[in-house]
Structures are given as structure tokens and as C-alpha cells.
């Protein structure tokens, strides 16, 4: 069952990828869709078994070892599936969302030529993601981690004739690699510290390592802090946290189903999963948790500010994703792991819904993504319109939609942490909540209401998507509405299912403390959400000239936000330009300095020397005789010197001479 759940998508991928030509588009779509749906069914069965199986399923959580990957000295790495509460929840989220996206893609990509390839990549991605969440050691996790990265690279660059798509895919891969650089170092440090990369062994060893120091980069540091921060760097890359986020908006070059699956619901949450998975280590590294909180809070805030100013419908949602990931991270930082995973799950549903809904809009508008060229189309695509509203309300945290439960929980937990960074994160989160509601409303009103700004042909042509696209949307919408209500008790309520999976030290138990925060803390996020929505309505429906005026008044700030805080420009100047410059300089120095002093110089010198030698070949016998005499004398003297030195002739003599030369 476990094996089927993880490997069914791989089978789908292999069949569709290798034999896509033979089985045709229909065949490829069928095998990939059925692969992932089978995986989803298996995951759901396992979900019930693991969480509610009771005592008759002794041995849950369980690990199934498939085969040895590699052993080297004390390092032992297996291919293994670890099924526990955390991984099974992730598996369900991944397979359900992925199934919806697979089916949706059949409709969305109906005009594309390479359907088989697209479907196979989606399945490849799902497989890699499942390997990631079920790994029982850090290196298999790294396999899944890089695997999803490659799938993301392939899918962002799916339309590989477009230069922008190619650039975006490379950027995504490289920025992620910068994160992976940290992750890899973190794994090295873990092995160095604990002598193992097996999760269970690590978790058992972590409490005893709190006092240990390690030398890193020439300084003594608290060992666990170093390890956790390095691992967190990987999480930052994958989850587009501030500093390593620049790839995510560009990744919207990929087809929309890709954005929904990879860049909203699943892959980008891998970082959240990583920290939650390693909670037994992070709990003993308070400094690292502080960094996680601050980075998360800032990300939530900064991304929301950018999201308010963008015009590309997908980019708005992308920044919103980044902002929501920020929420999850500061929840992790204040040890509210359950709340973070809760938000991860609800977010997966409503964000995938928003993206696929946006895809439906784009589909209707003949591939137009600029919201300035939309408007007034709600009557033409009423189902999509309703679904987008559901997604947006869930995102804005309006009561009884799923986002309300999880986001409130996070903010309350941050408040309940009673630390300066918890406080900071709380206020940044509140500010981001207003902005979230605001840009959600902005998106809805600009896209669907008012007078249309699209050209007539596009507008007339606008049409509702086929059922194959709408049914998956409805499933996701159901999740966006109900996941919060039904998940609350399980994730963060009084009957939590985590068991030993998420470790929280008693002193850090913010989830419990969050149930007892002051009333205003509980109500503030709702108020802010409503205020944000109302402001959005005012600006973009009631007084349509207001945004322009606001932009004029806050020109410098708007410029900063609109240009995404100039991260891209900064990185371009800081990393790309110097790298290329150094590359060129080194290449030249290879030619001129290394070769000049080395072989080419040597060759030149030999020519010169040869010329010199040729003068000796004068043809006069007496000169030859003279040189022979000199040589003979030299040889004889060397022989005598050697005799004097005794037994160890060659090397010691050389040592002596060099010493003398040195002196």
C-alpha cells in the first residue's frame, strides 16, 4: 500500500515519458491521471489507518526499507518510506491537489502539442515530492528536494522556445541551489556532529547535544544552532523566503497548473515541512528558531507589500503565496509546528484553487494575464467567478473559511510566544493580513467587475471553462471551505494527532497557550481582514480613480514595492555580473599568465635556449673537446662529492642545497 502510494506516479511518469508517442495523448493522460489518483486513494486509506487505526495497527508510525542506497564507512543511507502522522498528512495534501491538477491539465493543455511530456513531468514531480515527505533520512530527503527542483525546472521551462521561460527556469534552479548549498552543508554538519543522517537516530541524539560546540568557518558556535541554520537556508530557498525568493514570481512563466501544484500548494511548502520534520532538533536551537521567526515575519510583510502593486494576475497570487509561506515560517519559529502544518494544508487547497481559477480566467481571456486588460467578465464566467471568491475569502481569513482557522491560530501563537520576535512577527502578520485582504479584493474587482478593459474580440470570446477543468476546482473549493473547520481539532485543537512526530518543549508550547490569549488578539485578524476587503472595494470598485491618486502621493514607496524592493537588480549587480567578469578574467589569465609562464613560456625559452645551443655547434673540434673536458671534470667532481656524503645520497643532498638556497 505504502509503496503503491509513492511509486504509482513514477510508473505514470515512466510510461507517459517513454511511450508517450506510442500511446498517444489520451493514453498518456490516462496513465498519469490514474497513477496519481491511485496514489491519492492509497494515501487516504493510509491516512485513516495511521491516524485512526487505533491499537490494532501496532507499529504505526512505520518505516519500510526498500533497499540500500549507499554505505560509506559509518554513513549508511537507505531508500526507505517513513509513514507517520506528518508524512501521511503531507502525502494526502500532495496527492489530492496533484490529482486535481492532473485532471485540470487535461483540459487546460488541450491546445498544446506536448501533452504527454507535460503530464509525465507532473507525475515526476509528484513522485519526487512523495519521496521527499516520506524519507526517513536526510539524504533521501535531499533526493526528493532536488527532484522536485528539477521537475519544477522542467515545468517552468516547459514552453522552451520562450526565452523568458528558459531564463526563469534556470533562475529557479540556481536560486534553489543556493538554498541547497546550505542544506547540503547542514547535512554534512549533522553527520559530523551525530555520525548519522537517520532521522530517528538524530532525534534521539539531539537532546544530548545541546551543550556541544562545533568549529565552523574558524569560529566556535553552538553546534545545533549551526546545523539548524544551515538546514533552514535550504528551506528558505525552496520556500521562497526573503532573500532567496526572487525565483518564485518569475516561475509564473510556467503553465498555470504548474504554478498551482508546485509554486503554491506543494513544493514551496517543502521548507515548512523540513523544519516541522526536524522539530526535535530545532527545539534545542532557540537562536535558530528566532531567525526562522524573523525571516518568516519579514517575508509575510514584504511579499504582501509587493502583492498590492502587481498587475499580472498570477504574480499577485505568487506574492500572496510567498506571504503565506512567511506566516507558516513564523509559526514554526514560535514552535507552533501544528499550526504551520495546518496552514500548509488549508493554504494548499485555497491557493491551488486561486491559481487554477486564475488559469480558468486566463483560458477564458485568450491567454491574457494582465489585470489591466480584464474587468467586467463575471457574468461570462460565473462559476469561475464564484470559485475565485471562495478562494479569496479563505485567503483573506474571513470567518468559517479554512484560512480563518489556520491563520488566526498562527497569529495567536505568535502573540502567545511572549518574546520580542514573536511580538514582531505578530504585528508584521497583522499588517500583512490587511494587505492580503486588500489585494485579494483588488484582484477580484479588477478582474471581474467594472467596465471591461479588454479588447472587444477577447471579451466576446470569453467563455466558461469545460467541466474537466471546473470539477477539480470544485473539489478544491470544498477543501478551501471545510478543511479549516474539520482540521482544527486534529491539527491544533485539544485532540491533536501528532504523537511524537512534532516535538515541542513544554516551555515553548504556544499552540496550547494560544487558546488563552486576550480577546482582542483573537478578533483583530478578522477585523483586519474585513477592513482590507472593504478598502479594496473602495479603491477598485467604488472610486476607481483612487488608486492612481494614492500612487501619486506615495510615489517613492510605491516605486519600491512595484519594483519588488529591487532584489533582482541588487542580485544581478552583486552576483551575476561579478561571476561573469571573474570568469572572463580567469579565462584570460589561463591564456596569458598560466600558459605564459608555463608551456608557452617554456616553449619560447627553449627556442631561445636552442638558439644558444646551436652556437655551440660551431664545427670546431677544439671547442667540442673543451666542452667534453668541462663535462668530465664536472662528473668526476660530482662523484667525489657524492662519495663524501656517504649513504643517503640523492635526497639529502637536495635538501641541503635547498636549505642553503633558502638561507
Amino acid at each position: 500500500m505504502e509503496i503503491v502510494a509513492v511509486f504509482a506516479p513514477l510508473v505514470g511518469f515512466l510510461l507517459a515519458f517513454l511511450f508517450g508517442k506510442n500511446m498517444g495523448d489520451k493514453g498518456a493522460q490516462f496513465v498519469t491521471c490514474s497513477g496519481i489518483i491511485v496514489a491519492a486513494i492509497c494515501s487516504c486509506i493510509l491516512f485513516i489507518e495511521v491516524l485512526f487505526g487505533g491499537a490494532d495497527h501496532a507499529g504505526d508510525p512505520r518505516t519500510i526499507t526498500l533497499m540500500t542506497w549507499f554505505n560509506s564507512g559509518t554513513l549508511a543511507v537507505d531508500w526507505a518510506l517513513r509513514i507517520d502522522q506528518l508524512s501521511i498528512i503531507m502525502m494526502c495534501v500532495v496527492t489530492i491537489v496533484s490529482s486535481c491538477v492532473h485532471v485540470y491539465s487535461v483540459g487546460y493543455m488541450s491546445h498544446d502539442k506536448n501533452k504527454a511530456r507535460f503530464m509525465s513531468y507532473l507525475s515526476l514531480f509528484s513522485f519526487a515530492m512523495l519521496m521527499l515527505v516520506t524519507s526517513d533520512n536526510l539524504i533521501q530527503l535531499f533526493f526528493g528536494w532536488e527532484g522536485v527542483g528539477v521537475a519544477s525546472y522542467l515545468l517552468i521551462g516547459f514552453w522552451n522556445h520562450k526565452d523568458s521561460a528558459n531564463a526563469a527556469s534556470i533562475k529557479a534552479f540556481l536560486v534553489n541551489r543556493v538554498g541547497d548549498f546550505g542544506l547540503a552543508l547542514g547535512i554534512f554538519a549533522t553527520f559530523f556532529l551525530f555520525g548519522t543522517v537517520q532521522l530517528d537516530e538524530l532525534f534521539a541524539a539531539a537532546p544530548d547535544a545541546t551543550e556541544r560546540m562545533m568549529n565552523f568557518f574558524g569560529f566556535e558556535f553552538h553546534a545545533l544552532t549551526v546545523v539548524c541554520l544551515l538546514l533552514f537556508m535550504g528551506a528558505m530557498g525552496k520556500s521562497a523566503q526573503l532573500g532567496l525568493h526572487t525565483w518564485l514570481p518569475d516561475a509564473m512563466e510556467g503553465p498555470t497548473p504548474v504554478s498551482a501544484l508546485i509554486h503554491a500548494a506543494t513544493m514551496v511548502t517543502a521548507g515548512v515541512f523540513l523544519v516541522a520534520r526536524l522539530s526535535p532538533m530545532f527545539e534545542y536551537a532557540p537562536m535558530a528558531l528566532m531567525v526562522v521567526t524573523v525571516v518568516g515575519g519579514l517575508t509575510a510583510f514584504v511579499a504582501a507589500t509587493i502583492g498590492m502593486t502587481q498587475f499580472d494576475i498570477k504574480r499577485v497570487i505568487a506574492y500572496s503565496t510567498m506571504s503565506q509561506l512567511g506566516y507558516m515560517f513564523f509559526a514554526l519559529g514560535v514552535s507552533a509546528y501544528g499550526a504551520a502544518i495546518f496552514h500548509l494544508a488549508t493554504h494548499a487547497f485555497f491557493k491551488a484553487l486561486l491559481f487554477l481559477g486564475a488559469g480558468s480566467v486566463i483560458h477564458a481571456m485568450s491567454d491574457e494575464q494582465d489585470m489591466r486588460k480584464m474587468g467586467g467578465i463575471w457574468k461570462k464566467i460565473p462559476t469561475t467567478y464564484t470559485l475565485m471568491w471562495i478562494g479569496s475569502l479563505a485567503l483573506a481569513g474571513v470567518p468559517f473559511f479554512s484560512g480563518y482557522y489556520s491563520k488566526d491560530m498562527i497569529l495567536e501563537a505568535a502573540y502567545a510566544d511572549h518574546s520580542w520576535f514573536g511580538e514582531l512577527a505578530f504585528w508584521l502578520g497583522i499588517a500583512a493580513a490587511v494587505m492580503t485582504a486588500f489585494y485579494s479584493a483588488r484582484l477580484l474587482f479588477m478582474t471581474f467587475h467594472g467596465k471591461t478593459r479588454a479588447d472587444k474580440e477577447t471579451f466576446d470570446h470569453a467563455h466558461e471553462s469545460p467541466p474537466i477543468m471546473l470539477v477539480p476546482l470544485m473539489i478544491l473549493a470544498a477543501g478551501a471551505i471545510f478543511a479549516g473547520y474539520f482540521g482544527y481539532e486534529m491539527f491544533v485543537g485539544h485532540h491533536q494527532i501528532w504523537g511524537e512526530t512534532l516535538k515541542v518543549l513544554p516551555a515553548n508550547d504556544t499552540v496550547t497557550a494560544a487558546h488563552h490569549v486576550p480577546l482582542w488578539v483573537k478578533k483583530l485578524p478578522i477585523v483586519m481582514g474585513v477592513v482590507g476587503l472593504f478598502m479594496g472595494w473602495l479603491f477598485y470598485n467604488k472610486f476607481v480613480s483612487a488608486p492612481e491618486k494614492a500612487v501619486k502621493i506615495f510615489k517613492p514607496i510605491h516605486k519600491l514595492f512595484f519594483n519588488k524592493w529591487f532584489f533582482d537588480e541588487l542580485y544581478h549587480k552583486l552576483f551575476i555580473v561579478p561571476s561573469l567578469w571573474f570568469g572572463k578574467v580567469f579565462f584570460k589569465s589561463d591564456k596569458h599568465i598560466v600558459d605564459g609562464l608555463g608551456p608557452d613560456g617554456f616553449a619560447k625559452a627553449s627556442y631561445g635556449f636552442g638558439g644558444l645551443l646551436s652556437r655551440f655547434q660551431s664545427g670546431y673540434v677544439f671547442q667540442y673537446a673543451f666542452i667534453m673536458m668541462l663535462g668530465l671534470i664536472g662528473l668526476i667532481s660530482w662523484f667525489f662529492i657524492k662519495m663524501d656524503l656517504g649513504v643517503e645520497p640523492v635526497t639529502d643532498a637536495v635538501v641541503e642545497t635547498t636549505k642553503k638556497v633558502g638561507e
Partner: protein
Amino acid sequence: MIDFAILSLLIFLPLVGVAFILLIRGDENRVARNSRYVALYTTIFTFILSIYMLIKFDGTSAEFQFVEKHDWLPSLGIQYHVGVDGISLFFVILATLLTPICILASWNSIKMRVKEYMIAFLVLETFMIGTFCALDAVLFYVFFEGVLIPMFIIIGVWGGPRRIYSAFKLFLYTLLGSVLMLVALLALYLEVGSSDIPTLMASPVAQNMQIWLWLAFFASFAVKMPMWPVHTWLPDAHVEAPTAGSVILAGVLLKMGGYGFLRFSLPMFPEATEFFAPMVMWLSVIAIIYTSLVALVQEDMKKLIAYSSVAHMGFVTLGIFSATTQGVEGGIFQMLSHGIISAALFLCVGVVYDRLHTREISRYGGLVKNMPKYATVFMILMLGSVGLPGTSGFVGEFLTLMGAFQVDTVVAVFATTGVVLGAAYMLVLYRRVVFGTQKNDDAAAMKDMNKLEYSYLIPLVLLVLWLGIAPSYVMDKVAPSVEKLIGQYESGLKAKPEGTDLATAKQIKIGNAE
């Protein structure tokens, strides 16, 4: 065990092929065709034989196996002594695997002097296998240097327009190193009184002598590796060499340096190795970063892959000189993996070079449209080169870095930046060649891979994936020998006599610096 002289058979079988080729008579076409077939059959048979050896190899033992010992120059005590252990075993397989592939890759592209070409490759194979099997230092030297001659000829005769320059550069560089190694070998022989490698391993030499011998060997191996800053012969040699020449060069010849370090430097001169290890590790780091950056700005496909080879070899030396189990095993695995991946990448370049006769990146573009199968193969190899988990490139890179981290975190951090840079140049190369719009009509008109090209690329791709998913088949056979090697290295360090330790050596070093 095998009761016939399998190693000698492996070593000299290609020469039998040479004899057959020499016997071929007739008009030019017939000679060419027959020599191709003779060379192919010979190398394939050698390969099958080597697989038989692999099956019979006892993977649990660290001892030399299939040993043969005959007097060669009895008056000097020099023997014909061959054998393989876990370290050399897979290099032999690598050599026997890549040679038939080279013959196939040259099937249609070499039209001039086919007979001589095939002879050169067969002789080359003899020398390569011999190098990895030799257990006598003199024998090793003969094979090790012998490799240079056919390689020199292959580049010099069948190479590109600047072949003479490149061939001489290759020759000069490697010869300079070898001369020093020869001197060191003689000194070692005089000191220990034997040229038998196992005996040499068991007879420690004095500390200050170790330093000098180590340096002399290093000169030779570092050039072969090649390590920064003696790497500049490699890009030139690759660019001018015919495709098959590049394949052998990258696939097998570069591994001889690393093999040399493992066979000589570590077990015979442990103290010197410990003393110089930081230097080597830093040189490796420089190599990784420097050559990756250079690769980033290349306009020539072969040059780019050549520079990437230097970077990948940087990981190898990094791992070997970390002298940890993970580092050394990673280094060996990285060499094997690079042997396959870079060889296959050069074959990929060869595929398009045969069609368009240019290596310039900007002359291609958008190949995914007209050559989708080629694009897929190239993609997998590209990802292997990038070190994606699940391909063979990952295991070696990851283990070497892990080994380095245990010794020096600063080195490890800088070396790990290589994984970002490595991804950068390969992705950019792939994008420019395979993706994008089709700007060049002639590139857009190229046909996808034919059956012949399939026949040699697909096995390599499968190997890359297999070694990525189940590397333990190889690593478990390598492990006992590495364990023994590290044991030798560490006991060599413990055994060092009091007083004569590194202080003197440091003085020498300082003396030199002044």
C-alpha cells in the same frame, strides 16, 4: 578465483587485435572496414572478459586479486607483477567499457588512416589497463607514460586545426611531471631496494625523503589530474582531439592522476600527505571555483565541458586528501561517475559536431524541436554532471564534500559553492544549445540520433542512472580496499619516529618560500 592469467589476457588482448589489423591487406576501403570490425570485436571481447573478472572478484577482500608475478629484469629485482583490488577494479572496467564505445563513435567520423587510428586505440587500451593493473612501480611507469604516445598521435594526427600545438602542450606538460616522477621512482627504488608496489607500501621511508618523493609524484599526478594551475593543457587537448580522443581523455586518462594518488601518495608517503593535504585541498577549491567560472563564459562546447572536468576533478582531489572514508570513497566514485558522464557528454557534442562541424554554442539552438531524443539524453547527462541525486554524479560529489567537511569546514563551504556554479554553466549550455528559438537553419535541419549513436549513448545513460540509484554495488566492492588504504595511511602517521616530524619539513618549506 580464476585459474588463468586473466589480467595479462586483458592487458595484451588488444595487442592481438593490433596484430590482426596489421595482417589486413587489400584496397583502402576494405582495410578500413576490416580494421574497424577487428578493433570492435577485440574491444568488445576484452570488455566481456573484464565483466567476467568483475563477477569473479571477491568484493569482501581488500587484497590484490588475480595476481600474476613473473621475473622481468631479474638482475634488478624488477618483476612483471599485476593484480587488482577494489580501488583499481572499476577503473579497468571503465577503460574496457569506453574503448569499444570510442571505436563505435569513430565508425563514420574517421575516414583518414582508419587502420592506424584503430591500432592507436588498441595500443592505448593496453596501456590503460596495464596502468591500473600494474603492481610494480617500473611496470606502472612504463604503462603510465606509454599512454601518452598513442594519445599524442591521436590528437596530433586526427585532431582539429590547432592539433600540433595542443599535442605538444599535452606532451610537454605531462612529460615534465613524468620526469620528476621517474627520478622519484629511482630514488625510492634505491632507498627501499625494490620496485614492488605492495613492498613499497609496507616499507616506510624517512620523513624528509617522503616530502621530496611526494612532491615529485605530485608533479606528475597533478598534471594528469589535472589540478589548477597545471590544467591548461586539458581544454586545448579536448578541443583539438577527435570525439573519441576526448572520450578516452576525459573518461580514463584523467583518472590516472587520482589513481596514482591513491596507489602511491597516500599509502607510501602518509606523513608528507598529511603535511601537504591542506595545500592540495585549497588547490582543489581554487580549481572548483576558478574553472567553474571560466566554464561559465565559454563559447565552445568542448572547452566548456573540459573546464567542467577540471572542476569535477577538484572534488576528487578534495575527497582523496581529506583522507576520510567518505572522502576517499567519494573521490573514487566521482572519478568513475565523471568517467561515464563526461565521456557521454563529449559523445553528445560529437553527435552534433558530426552534423554541423562546429563546436560553437551560438551556432546551435532550439535542437529540442528537431532532435527530441537527443535532447532527452543530453538532459539526463547534463543533470548527472550537475550532480542531481539519483544520478551517479551526486554520490561522488556529496561524499567528497562530506569528507572534506570533517577535516576543514572552510574548505568545505567554498567547495560546496561548486554545486551552484556547476549547475549554472551546465544549465546555460543546455539552454543555449537545446532550448530557445531555432535561429540557425542548418542546426534546425539536423536529424535526430541514429541507431549507431543510440547504441553507445543509451548504455551510458542507463549506467548513470543505475549508479545513481544503486551505487552500493560498486561502493561495497571498493570499501574494503579503501578501509585498508586508510588503515595504512593512519598507521603510517602513528609510526612516525619522534623528533623527525614536521618541524624539519616546515623549515624546508619556509626555506623554499624565502
